[in-house]
Structure formats: structure tokens, C-alpha cells
């Protein structure tokens, strides 16, 4: 009997651990507080906005340096002529940050309900 109890406890422990792992893994990139980075129409990565980081996206059109800080994402600098993406500042939701010349788009999960939009 002791042996059965031992196995049951072990299985329960395993179950609890996998549930925890699943929650952590699924939250990353799917919940709120994320942003998807697209370059030339392809998704480059999904960023967790709670984790501060800096990275560079290079495309045929040019280069954007992206900074994640204090729960928001911004284009720190860009090689594009108009700098509209940089002027947009830090965002964590709402309309996507777009750098048209470099074909970079940073979008937030709110827009996920839409497949495309007209001009």
C-alpha cells in the first residue's frame, strides 16, 4: 500500500510540475504584454515586453534598433529617412509601430483579431 501511495504522490507531483511549465510556456508570447516584430512581411520574433532588451532588425531596406524597457517597446534608431517609427516613441498596445521604408512592423496582440486591413 505504501508503494501505491508513493506512486500516486509522484504522479501528482509530475502533473503539478507540467501544469506549471505549460502555464509559463504558454504565457510567453501569447498573453498580454507582448509584441510581434515583423520584417518585410515575415514575423521575426514575439517579444515579452516585461523583459528589458535591445536588438537589431536588419532588412534590405535598412536597419532598426529596437528597445524594450519598462513594459513598452520603441524604435531607438533607424536608417530610414522619415524617422516616423522613432518619433512614435514607446508603445505597449494599440496601433502598430510601422517603419514603411525599412518594412518593419511592430504589432500588439489587440490587432490579432484582424487578418489584414485596407489602406
Amino acid at each position, binding site marked *: 500500500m505504501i508503494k501505491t501511495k508513493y506512486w500516486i504522490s509522484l504522479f501528482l507531483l509530475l502533473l503539478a510540475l507540467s501544469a506549471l511549465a505549460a502555464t509559463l510556456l504558454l504565457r510567453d508570447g501569447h498573453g498580454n504584454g507582448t509584441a510581434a516584430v515583423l520584417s518585410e*512581411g515575415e514575423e521575426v520574433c514575439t517579444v515579452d515586453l516585461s523583459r528589458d532588451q535591445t536588438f537589431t532588425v536588419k532588412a534590405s531596406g535598412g536597419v532598426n534598433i529596437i528597445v524594450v524597457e519598462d513594459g513598452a517597446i520603441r524604435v531607438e534608431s533607424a536608417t530610414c529617412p522619415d524617422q516616423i517609427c522613432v518619433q512614435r516613441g514607446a508603445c505597449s498596445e*494599440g*496601433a*502598430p509601430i*510601422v517603419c*514603411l521604408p525599412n*518594412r518593419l512592423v511592430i*504589432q500588439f496582440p489587440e*490587432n490579432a*483579431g*484582424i*487578418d*489584414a*486591413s*485596407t*489602406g
Partner: protein
Amino acid sequence: MDTVMEVTVYGSGASDAAEEAERAIRRLEELWSVTREDSEISRLNRGETVELSEETANLLQKGLRLSEETGGALNLALYPLTRLWGFTTEEYRVPSREEIDALLDRLRSGSLSLEDNRASLSSWELDFGAVAKGYAAQLSADMLKERGVTSALLTLGGNVQTVGNKEDGSLWRIGVRDPWGEEGDYLGVLLVGEAAVVTSGAYQRYFEEDGVRYGHILDPETGRPVESGLASVTIVAEDGFLADGLSTALYVMGLEEATEFFRGRDDFEAVLVDDAGTIYVTEGLRDSFECSQFQVIER
């Protein structure tokens, strides 16, 4: 057509098909670009007699037909006027009445000769801007279908064209841009199957001088930016060329004339937004437009 293009193809062999579609669009873009000196249209505009490619000849014929059907609201020969206002170079200016009238005279007296695929212009200079993206998207959607693709989404600038339904069989959700909002702000969402969805509005390109806003869509009657009381027109149609051309034409017409035009046809539906922000939706879209409030245009 310096526009952002995105082709997403679902199913097997998808990435090859998507690449092929993108290449096809780029090729058409080169044929129809007014800014490329060696494009077919640039050569025509310089007064040369040009042996047109099949696609260009078709586009020209379709364009002339639609221009006639819309009572001239769609006009493919406005290039000199577009240039006069600076929309080709972004060196904007408000021209004098004399300058505009001179070009309107040229527009009225001009003509196109098209025999087989040999074309030449007299006095006219063409600009396919109002229909090129729509036709290019349609041709590449056709190409994808011929390859057996059953689900794809193409966006070309503000033009959206779909093949089939979404991969899971559900309808596509297409956001209709808020003319007063930022990119990514929607007035509502259209639910469509296989269709082309195209929006036209002055908000897409304009300049301001002395507090007046001048939009890039010109009225062929006045030679000036359209002041029809509409902020945007979105067309849903099976055909990408038609959706593109009609979005411009109905924008030029204004609400009343557009409503009348709609009642005389059965090949498109529309979402019209007037300058006051009232949204009008044609009957056929009543149940496929997700939006807080709109008025229905009965057929």
C-alpha cells in the same frame, strides 16, 4: 506603386507560390510604373507607339470601359494634373485656375488609339494608379488559384485580395481603416470569403496649404482634389480591378451619385464614410460588417 506588399499562402507548396506571386506583382509594377522611364506606360506617355504586353492592353481596355461605366468618375488620363499638383514628386503646390484649365482642355481633346495591342496617345498621359494595384493583385490571385492554392491573403498597399476562405474554413476579417485615425485604427471589420477589398480616401495622401487640405484623388471635372463630402470609400467585389477602380470612382461621385450607381449594379458592395463620420453600408454587407453603428443603403 511603391507600396508594401505581403503575400501569405496557406497549405503545401505555400512559400514557392507566395514567392512566385510576389515576383508576378513586381513584374506588373514595372510595366505600369509612371516613374520608371522604360515602362510601357512611360513610353506611351512620351508619345511613342508601343506594342503593349497582354496585361497592359487588358488593363487599358478594362480601364476605359470602367471609366465609361462610371460616367468619367474614373479617369486614367489625369497624370498631367497629378503632376501639376505635385503629387508625383511630393513637391506640392496649388496651381492657378489657368494652369488647371489648360490641362483640362488637353484632357478633353486627348485620345488613345488601341488596335490589337499597338497603342499610342494623343495629348493624353496615362496613370494607372487608380487600378494597377487592384489588377496586379487580381492577376496574382488568379495565378495562385491556377496552382491549386485554396487559401491565400494578398495585401498590396491598402488593397486586400483573398483566395478562398481562411485555412480553417472561416471568413477573413478585414479591418476598414478609420480615415481620421492612425494606421491600425479601424472603423469596423468586414467578414469576407474570396474577395477583393479596397479603400480610397484623401487621408491616404494629401498636403496642406493655408489651412486647406488637398487630397491626392483628383476630380476629372474640376481638375482639383475631390470635394465630394466623403472621407473614404471601401469596395468589396469579386474582382480586384473592379474594387480598386470603383473605390476611386465612388469617392469622386459622392454619396448620392454613388448610391444611385450602386443600385444600377450587382457586382460590388461598399462602405462609405462621409466627412461627418457617418458610415453607410450597402445592403449586402449588412450582416458582414462588424461596427458599432451604420446606416444601410438599400438596393
